[in-house]
């Protein structure tokens, strides 16, 4: 069922990671990802991996949930591996058969690319979606991007759109499920036939879904109007984001660790030089 999708799910909790200022989480995640792409050798990755394991442990979401989050991108990881293994030139040949050549360099590249993607996904999950409610994430984005308001970027409106989209994703997924069941009950067949037939078979789902989405949008707009919504001007917020002492400490520690990782990358590359 569509409802079973856990990607991007929020697990409420009370851990130190949950309590971090969402803006801080956002900034650290971006810095972490930057560091991931700057580093190559084993030492920086041990540092980067280590701090992530610590973060996952602190978040109390559970390692099972974290690895579960990797499942949907497994196919991406496999493709990345194959691509790197077969299409990287240079380095020492360790296997060769007909037109297939595998070099140590390719294996090395594949290994780091997969590690990089996996760490990237885990970091965004633990630090962001698993431990931050979507609304806080949106607030954080709005706040971090707010300087852009000066150059007329509609930051508040974008954040509001994101909130509403997040709010209605489960509702619309449930609705899609229902409409599919109803049309199947009238003999609709979504599983057989060629591409064109299958695309055509989606019409009885898409049209009711669009109509319903528009109806919901209209009703929601009325309801928001009734509750005096008038854009971001003069709005207050229930949840005021405040940088606590703890957040400064976390920021300092994180910056230190990331700097260490990047520094170690320059000093010890274990003899392999990358382009």
């Amino acid at each position, binding site marked *: 069922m569509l409802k079973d999708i856990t990607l991007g799910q929020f697990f409420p909790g009370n851990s130190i990671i949950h309590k971090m200022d969402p803006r801080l989480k956002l900034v650290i995640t971006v810095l972490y990802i930057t560091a991931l792409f700057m580093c190559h050798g084993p030492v920086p990755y041990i540092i980067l991996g280590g701090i992530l394991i610590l973060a996952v442990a602190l978040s109390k979401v559970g390692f099972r949930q974290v690895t579960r989050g990797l499942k949907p991108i497994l196919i991406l990881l496999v493709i990345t591996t194959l691509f790197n293994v077969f299409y990287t030139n240079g380095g020492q040949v360790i296997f060769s058969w007909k037109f297939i050549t595998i070099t140590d360099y390719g294996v090395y590249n594949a290994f780091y690319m997969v590690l990089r993607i996996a760490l990237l996904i885990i970091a965004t999950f633990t630090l962001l979606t698993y431990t931050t409610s979507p609304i806080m994430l949106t607030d954080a984005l709005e706040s971090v991007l707010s300087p852009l308001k000066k150059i007329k970027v509609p930051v508040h409106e974008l954040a509001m759109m994101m909130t509403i989209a997040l709010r209605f994703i489960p509702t619309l997924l449930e609705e899609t499920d229902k409409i599919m069941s*109803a049309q199947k009950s009238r003999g609709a067949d979504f599983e057989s036939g060629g591409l064109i037939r299958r695309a055509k078979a989606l019409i*009885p789902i898409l049209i009711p879904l669009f109509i319903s989405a528009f109806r919901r949008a209209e009703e929601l707009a009325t309801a928001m109007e009734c509750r005096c919504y008038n854009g971001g001007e003069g709005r207050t917020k229930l949840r005021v984001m405040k940088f606590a002492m703890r957040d400064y400490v976390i920021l300092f520690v994180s910056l230190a660790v990331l700097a260490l990782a990047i520094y170690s990358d320059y000093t010890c590359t274990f003899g392999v030089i990358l382009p």
Partner: protein
Amino acid sequence: MDNIIEVLNLTHTYGADTPFEHTAIEDMSFEIKQGEILGLIGHTGSGKSTLIQHLNGLLKPDSGMVKFCGRDIWDDKQFTREVRFSVGLVFQYPEYQLFEETVERDIAFGPTNMKLSEDEIRERVLYAARSVGLDDSILLKSPFELSGGQKRRVALAGVIAMKPKVLILDEPTAGLDPEGREEILNYIKNYNKETGATIVFVTHSMEDIARVVDRIVVLEKSKILMTGTPKEVFSRTEDLIRAGLTIPVAAEIAGKLAKKGIPVSPAIYTIEQLADAISTLYAGGGKNA
């Protein structure tokens, strides 16, 4: 009477092996008899929706079996597809599933999927539209121009056009005004009378359907709480209330009278029955009823 549908030890679990695991139906067995009007009653989350989706093969049992006319509906692919058409399922708020440009084409969706001839489809569309009181002039209109009550009837016609032997309706009167509720119930009763089709009403409110049904199956927390005639079921008002269900006003008043020591039958569930009982008591000086 023969059993048209048999449910045998049916179990269904959602999201197995995830933190969201939930058993919607647990070891459930009952039968639906040919030609009867059955009320399937239960509170939200009692497993009603999951159950009915097993009856026309939308969901596959995790264990147990659903039999249609004595044969497992998952016996072979062809049969499963036949059952899909023989057991018509009308979901809650079915008007939200309309999609065609005209009412006629929307009603024809089911029969077209059955691969019937043009003439047969046309004939069935007219039949279905008339059986829910839709005027022929409406057939060429867009379903989206119609009123809420009319849309509901178009959606109902879309299932009736498949001429199902069993018609299952999930809260068919939800959100309608009193007149609209009464009309829908009458069209469905007529379909039962005219074609001899079996009807299953799925609902959490008994007031509307108490007078219509022959038999009731009450669900509570993924299991069957009780089965019986309306008389049998409504005489157990306390169990029903405990299961989060409302009972017909007549049954409620009868229960209150019984508590006051007035000898009214606990099996009363319609206003007429209650008025009869009171009249008899009144005429007979309160001795027997």
